């Protein structure tokens, strides 16, 4: 065995000297696998292994086998000093990278910041700040949870991460809330995926309808950004403006373009139309507007009784003023004598 080991070490050293460092390493690693107490093999490995950490490990093992080797101890001290210097240098570099990333985040250049954070973590996976920042910038809640869990593995006392992790885990379980969250972050693809999942799996028909509606809106945001179909107050106002405007202009024509001549009944009609139009648009286009949620609970107008009641009120309030206008037009027409 001794002879065999010496032969292998000789071959490995010859290979290394001939420039085949990797081949030498392989031979020595095979040797220490079968003969872990071979001091000479570990000493040579401490020269040939590619990284400083690995070389240190090999040298420490050799010293454990023979603590009296003063030359090896001296070399260990030198290598530890070198490692310390390298770590300090690397730390400074990472700090510089982190401040650059923070600047990017302040400038809202999120994709670039995310890319740099991932690079930084690949180099230094024990960097707590990098994991914390990554948990803020990744879009997918699953990825955020992984980042927070990694951070808490490094530092279990990070209270902010603990709180945030609980919140994210709760969010992960509530599909619609998750969709709203993605909408808020303008992550339309993730939002569309979540809503598609909700539409396919939910047992509540009202929720399925809402999920389908929001999925379409999110898909529209992907293909045609900037249309703002998800700004519910704006959508509500824009869509509800049509019938009152039509009524207002008709009354304007009816009064001979003199709005001050408008009878009080038609003024009330205008208020009716406003109410009716807002109700009908609310039912079909903004059923989850915060206003409806306040009135009818968290699912807003996605409850059959609420929808029906509001639909009836909306239709009544819209039809009555137009019918009234039609009647007063006909009465005036009957009184008219052709000149």
């Amino acid at each position, binding site marked *: 065995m001794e002879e065999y080991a010496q032969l292998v070490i000789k071959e490995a050293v010859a290979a290394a000297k001939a420039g085949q460092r990797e081949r030498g390493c392989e031979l020595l690693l095979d040797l220490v696998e079968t003969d872990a107490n071979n001091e000479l093999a570990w000493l040579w490995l401490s020269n040939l292994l590619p990284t400083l950490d690995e070389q240190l490990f090999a040298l420490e093992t050799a010293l454990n086998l023979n603590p009296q080797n003063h030359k090896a101890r001296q070399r260990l001290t030198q290598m530890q000093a070198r490692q310390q210097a390298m770590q300090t240098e690397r730390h400074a570099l990472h700090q510089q990278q982190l401040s650059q990333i923070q600047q990017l985040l302040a400038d809202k250049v999120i994709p670039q910041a995310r890319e740099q954070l991932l690079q930084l973590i690949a180099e230094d996976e024990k960097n707590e700040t990098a994991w914390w920042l990554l948990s803020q910038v990744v879009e997918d809640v699953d990825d955020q949870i992984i980042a927070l869990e990694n951070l808490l593995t490094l530092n279990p006392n990070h209270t902010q991460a603990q709180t945030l992790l609980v919140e994210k885990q709760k969010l992960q379980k509530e599909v619609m809330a998750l969709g709203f969250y993605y909408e808020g972050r303008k992550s339309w693809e993730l939002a569309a995926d979540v809503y598609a999942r909700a539409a396919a799996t939910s047992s509540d028909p009202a929720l399925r309808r809402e999920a389908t509606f929001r999925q379409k809106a999110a898909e529209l945001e992907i293909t*045609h950004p*900037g*249309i*703002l179909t998800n700004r519910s107050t704006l959508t509500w106002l*824009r*869509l509800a*403006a*049509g*019938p009152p*405007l*039509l009524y207002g*202009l*008709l*009354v*304007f*024509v*009816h*009064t*001979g*373009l003199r709005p001050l*001549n408008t009878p009080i009944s038609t003024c009330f009609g205008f208020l009716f139309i406003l109410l009716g139009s807002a109700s009908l648009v609310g039912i079909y286009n903004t059923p989850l507007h915060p206003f409806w949620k306040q009135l009818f609970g968290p699912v807003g107008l996605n409850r059959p009784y609420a929808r029906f009641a509001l639909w009836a009120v909306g239709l009544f309030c819209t039809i009555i003023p137009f019918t009234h*206008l*039609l009647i007063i*037009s*006909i009465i*005036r*027409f009957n009184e*008219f004598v*052709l000149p």
Partner: protein
Amino acid sequence: MFIPLSDKEPNRYSGFSSVTLVLIGLNVLIYAYEEALAVSAPENLYFLFYFFGVVPKWIWAQQGLGAVSAITVAFLHGGMAHLLGNMLFLWAFGRRVEDACGRWRFLCFYLLCSVTATLAHVIIHSQGELPGIGASGAVSGVMAAYLILYPWGRINTIFFPLPIRFSVRAFWLLIYFLIISNVIPALQVLFSQADFQVAYWAHLGGLIGGTSIFLFMRPEAIYRFWRQDSV
């Protein structure tokens, strides 16, 4: 003369533009009734136009049907060419506008354009005693909406009377029809009191109404225009 036939693109959201077709159907039916009336009792046709068309002087004097006539005017036509022209334009441009808006909103928009066209006609021809009729004001509004929604859309067009068929970008066609063939005579009406058979100011009223409404609904349209994008 350029005559648009249809939009090259299919509908995106709905398979069937029912309100556009119902409006065309209604117009055709009412025109058939007018023709029948012209044969059986021509004096009644005269009353029909006066009572259901827009007579500016009566509107100012708060006489006649008033508000209702601002709607009924869009269903009356003075001849086959008048009807055919308006309905072709309504079909070519209205189909996809309805597709983008939805049925009820499109109907409301169409009627709104009819009212804004009436208003423009009544304001400019305040002393006019002849009834204004036709859907062209409302159709102008629909064309404006099309221009805002699909400025780069392609329209199948023929060059009448030659049987040459080609497709042309919507904005060229609309610039030609709305701006060139309407603004100049409309200005002549305003400044030199020219008298035309065509209610150019009703066309412009519909155009302005349609543009205002759609820019209110879709304020990002101008930005999309420069990006050469559509809804």
